């Protein structure tokens, strides 16, 4: 029964990646350089451009922004135009500057939370898969439980417990994603551990830790990398959702989700207040999704042929 249930990969439209990693050889499944792959695939190229631009904007935000985030720009609810490219909000703050500066908050929640989830989820998943048996069944049962939970309620309760700050947002999102990463690391570990080269290493007297690090880890990095880039897009969405509900980044700090939520109050006086923060969330998530798809295709040549 359990075997027929689609993996998380599959649920995210990533059937092929899980198959590639499961059946992958001793080497990671990618063939050829990623650069060549990107050059052939405009979608991945677009994703890479969006993500790179986003990171650059976040780094140089204070120099790009024309006003400070909470500075009165001199006009309340101004329409988008030459002076204020994205208009101003009901407090007279320049939305272009807020959106630019807000990228810092979004990325500085998304990247660390996914990194933390991988740092904990990856070893846990590998261990669970490596030990197998009862430990593995217990883990799957736990995963069933977590899957039936409405995650946003859990996130809300966790943030309510920890208090809304950037660090707590990172921690909350990381906790939500640890089981996801663990699940992705577990699958390929299960299949790689029975392969000949692992048996060979063991017959040469290699210890479990050495086998995990030297032989299994390199073989499961591909699916974990793909999952991470998709989790980044989800982390952006979750941060935006929590901030939208007023539980994430707290105003007057600039944040796409919070600005979108705040903009709703006076939206009949200017739709630009919700459109630009919302579009930024969309574009950022779109970029990470494209990049994730591209990575998956790169690691799985079979899918590439199918297209």
């Amino acid at each position, binding site marked *: 029964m359990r075997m027929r249930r689609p993996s998380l990969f599959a649920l995210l439209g990533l059937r092929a990646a899980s198959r590639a990693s499961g059946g992958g050889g001793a080497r990671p499944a990618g063939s050829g350089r990623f650069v060549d792959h990107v050059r052939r695939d405009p979608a991945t190229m677009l994703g890479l451009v969006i993500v790179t631009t986003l990171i650059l904007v976040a780094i140089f935000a204070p120099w790009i922004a024309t006003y400070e985030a909470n500075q009165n720009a001199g006009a309340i609810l101004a329409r988008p135009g030459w002076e204020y490219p994205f208009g101003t909000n009901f407090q007279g703050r320049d939305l272009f500057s807020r959106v630019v500066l807000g990228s810092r908050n979004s990325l500085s929640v998304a990247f660390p939370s996914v990194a933390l989830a991988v740092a904990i989820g990856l070893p846990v998943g590998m261990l669970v898969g490596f030990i197998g048996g009862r430990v593995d069944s217990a883990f799957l049962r736990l995963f069933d439980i977590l899957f039936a939970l*409405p995650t946003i309620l859990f996130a809300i309760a966790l943030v309510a417990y920890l208090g809304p700050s950037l660090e707590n947002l990172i921690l909350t999102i990381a906790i939500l994603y640890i089981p996801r990463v663990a699940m992705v690391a577990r699958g390929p570990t299960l299949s790689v551990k029975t392969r000949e080269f692992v048996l060979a290493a063991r017959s040469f007297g290699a210890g479990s830790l050495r086998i995990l690090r030297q032989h299994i880890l390199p073989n499961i990095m591909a699916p974990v990398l793909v999952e991470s880039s998709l989790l980044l897009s989800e982390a952006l969405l979750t941060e935006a959702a929590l901030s939208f509900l007023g539980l994430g980044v707290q105003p007057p700090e600039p944040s796409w989700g919070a600005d979108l939520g705040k903009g709703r109050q006076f939206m009949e006086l200017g739709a630009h207040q919700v459109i630009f923060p919302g579009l930024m969330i969309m574009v950022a998530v779109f970029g990470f999704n494209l990049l994730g798809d591209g990575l998956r295709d790169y690691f799985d040549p079979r899918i590439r042929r199918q297209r």
Partner: protein
Amino acid sequence: MGRYIVRRLLLLIPVVLGVTFLTFLLIRIIPGDIVTRMMGVTIANNPETRALILSELGLDRPLLEQYVWWLGRIFLQGDFGYSFIHGGPVIDQILSRGPVTLQLGLMSMAIAIAIGVPLGVLSAVKRGTALDLLARIFALLGISTPSFFTGTLIVVFGAIWFPKVTTLGYVPFTEAPWESLSRMLWPALALGLGIGAIILRYTRSSVLEVLGEDYVLTARAKGLPEAAVVFVHALKSALIPVITAIGLWSAFLVSGAVILEEVFAIPGLGRLVLSAIENRDYPIIQGTVLFLSLVVALVILVADLLVAAVDPRVRLH
């Protein structure tokens, strides 16, 4: 089949127990004091009154005992307890608001399936054509757009451009069925588009995979028309994993519904639990999460049973 159903129902028990226990633990570590919320600061600061209230509510007992008590009352007497804040029975709240959230969820899922499955199949069958490209761009945009953004746009532009068509606000289905459906259509669309995009991507890759199988090749080699190959041979096995996936996505749907209820001011379980978390109203939070998780677990179960009914390999495994 009968034995399979029984086995699956038994497996439901640990899942529900686990969900409720996790919720129980989590909401009790949320700081914020229920006594202060109920009685105000003056009374809450009096240690004797405070102890009295805590023991009245059963909050002075060990955590595990509280949990067993709560669960026992539900299963033995059908008693979900009473709200700490307004004193009404929790079950009344769930029964009055549950249908609202269920209506939103069902309509969203119907929209998502109606968009995702046919477009996914078409996109796979017509792989490489302009239609496929369009469907994939739509899918990518769909999964990249947060439902609360789609929802907000509908609220903003609906009010500006089509004030007659986009009447918002909630009307119970039992009072005015047509009115209720047409008003709920907008939030359901905001939620359904995103999930529809996920289903589309998933259906597409599932169909693509099956189209590459040997038996499809055989069917083609026999000279069957392409439509027969797709509809008779490929679709049946391609859509089985899609059913399971749709079941699993119902948890995601519940999360989306919570936010959209906030956007569209729909008085469902999502808004109930949001305010309960703010007020530390434990019985409401516990009861609602238990109810929602039960619904999700049941939907997953129904999807699995459907799959088992179609695919004998599953129930014999």
